[in-house]
């Protein structure tokens, strides 16, 4: 009963390396089914909704009012499904951290990598890279499919038109940043159901509450809500008479602020709390 010694003895220069921890987090992410399923669901639902929405507009175009026709934004219609992407990516972002706490894996993780901010940072980096690739592919696919399904006389958009590329790229970016926001919330809350509730609450319930408030409050507050920011980011035209909005990139910066705020708070708490 002797251990075979296959490991080279650690030399004083051996220490935890960022690249190893990144690879470790990537292994963790790709070896659970929830990752694959949430990403597949995200792609199917969002591209599917793009197809349905675009086809529906083509079918009902002749019955639309002149005002609706004038304010029609073919880019925004094809990116409608990104709302679902934003919801689903939040679930993935939450699960990446909450599953560790739920299953106790976090103790194995922190035994291997006691530097907690490093664990959170590498998780965030891996989630961001995976999400960015998938969500940009998704956003472009939804846009191209949606435009292909908008039949004449319905106007359709091309990537070379002003603001269109920004909307399509921005759609993928918003999904990525919201995934990170979910990760940050889960690090604070450390519970799957709680994390998802907080995420959905911020995304969908806050706008409903805000709408119930008088416009003197709801207008200045509303433009800072994630849903309105991503809506502006993925639209090319701004509907006249609608509530005020932040400009697309200022809005995106605010969205990043949500993610950074949640991640920093999560990181501070993670360092301070018992695992």
């Amino acid at each position: 009963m002797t251990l075979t010694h296959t490991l080279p003895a650690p030399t004083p220069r051996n220490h935890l390396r960022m690249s190893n921890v990144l690879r470790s987090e990537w292994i963790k992410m790709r070896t659970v089914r929830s990752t694959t399923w949430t990403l597949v669901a995200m792609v199917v639902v969002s591209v599917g909704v793009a197809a349905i929405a675009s086809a529906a507009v083509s079918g009902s175009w002749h019955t639309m009012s002149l005002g609706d026709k004038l304010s029609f934004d073919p880019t925004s219609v094809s990116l409608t499904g990104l709302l679902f992407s934003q919801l689903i990516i939040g679930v993935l972002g939450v699960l990446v951290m909450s599953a560790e706490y739920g299953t106790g894996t976090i103790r194995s993780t922190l035994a291997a990598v006691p530097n907690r901010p490093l664990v959170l940072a590498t998780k965030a980096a891996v989630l961001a890279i995976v999400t960015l690739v998938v969500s940009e592919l998704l956003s472009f696919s939804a846009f191209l499919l949606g435009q292909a399904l908008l039949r004449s006389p319905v106007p359709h958009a091309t990537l070379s038109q002003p603001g269109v590329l920004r909307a399509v790229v921005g759609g993928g970016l918003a999904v990525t940043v919201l995934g990170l926001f979910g990760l940050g919330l889960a690090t604070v809350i450390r519970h799957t159901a709680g994390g998802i509730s907080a995420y959905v609450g911020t995304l969908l319930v806050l706008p409903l509450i805000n709408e119930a408030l008088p416009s003197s409050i709801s207008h200045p507050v509303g433009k800072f809500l994630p849903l309105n920011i991503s809506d502006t980011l993925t639209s090319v035209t701004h509907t006249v008479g609608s509530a005020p909005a932040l400009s697309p990139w200022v809005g995106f910066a605010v969205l990043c602020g949500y993610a950074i705020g949640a991640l920093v708070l999560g990181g501070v708490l993670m360092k301070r709390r018992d695992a």
Partner: protein
Amino acid sequence: MIEVNGVTKHYGDKVAVDDLSFEVNPGQVTGFLGPNGSGKSTTMRMIMGLDAPDSGSVRINGRPYRNLPLPLREVGALLEAKAIHPGRSAYNHLLYLAQSNDIPRARIDEVLERVGLTEVAKQRAGKFSLGMGQRLGIAAALLGDPQVLLLDEPINGLDPEGILWVRNLLKGLASEGRTVFVSSHLMSEMALTADHLVVIGRGHLISTGTVSEFIAEGSGQFVRVRSPQSIELAQRLVAEGAQVINEQDGALAVTGSSASAIGEVAGAHGIYLHELSPQMASLEDAFMEITRDSVEYHGVSSSGPVAHLTPSPASRK
């Protein structure tokens, strides 16, 4: 080598560990004993840097856990058998751990072989029995070929063959000069496995030393005496300076005297003896005796309060 220095930990108002100090040395199996709820797991988590002590410090090989350059290569731990994602395979669980500490992949196959999980390595860990989960946890602990091993209740859920396997594994690791620290609430198991004991109760250090020292300390050796004239005998023995306790079945438990002295007292006064037997406490009895006042949860049996070492459901965390 593990050094625990004056560690205290509260959870809310409750003191889990109170000014606890001990050392765990290489080359032997050190058993960490205590009733359920006595602070063993909390202490283990503090050694691993998972929970921060309110005061005091813990060092492994001379430094705090978080300062170990490649932790898994110095310390292997089995903290909870189910600290494993049920959807991830055994192999992938070990793979992410190995990757983080720059441990070559070939080592994963070695430890899987060692714990006997090679056949099921690609299966999802959620399908594993409690015993297989324990084996996977032990594989993870061995992954980095560490000099220090911490195992929290490693035989939980194992069948007799598995228990024997763990016992031999721990002894083998210690004989290779490693530091092996293993917790249990089962005194009998520790009697077979451990060379050295650290015993705690309610977060306090109760005793530390070799297994034989522990038995001597806790046995409170006494002599059981039965006599038809037990009242007179008791009075005579007390007059001689012994302590006498009436046992429930009418026997006398005599401490502070020896069997021969008791026999002489009886003979000198013409008292008949039906039994005169020196009692040696087992390790189990010693453990019960020493931890009696510090058992967190007492069960109540029909014959009066008895300290239960196996927990009632309510005493499980």
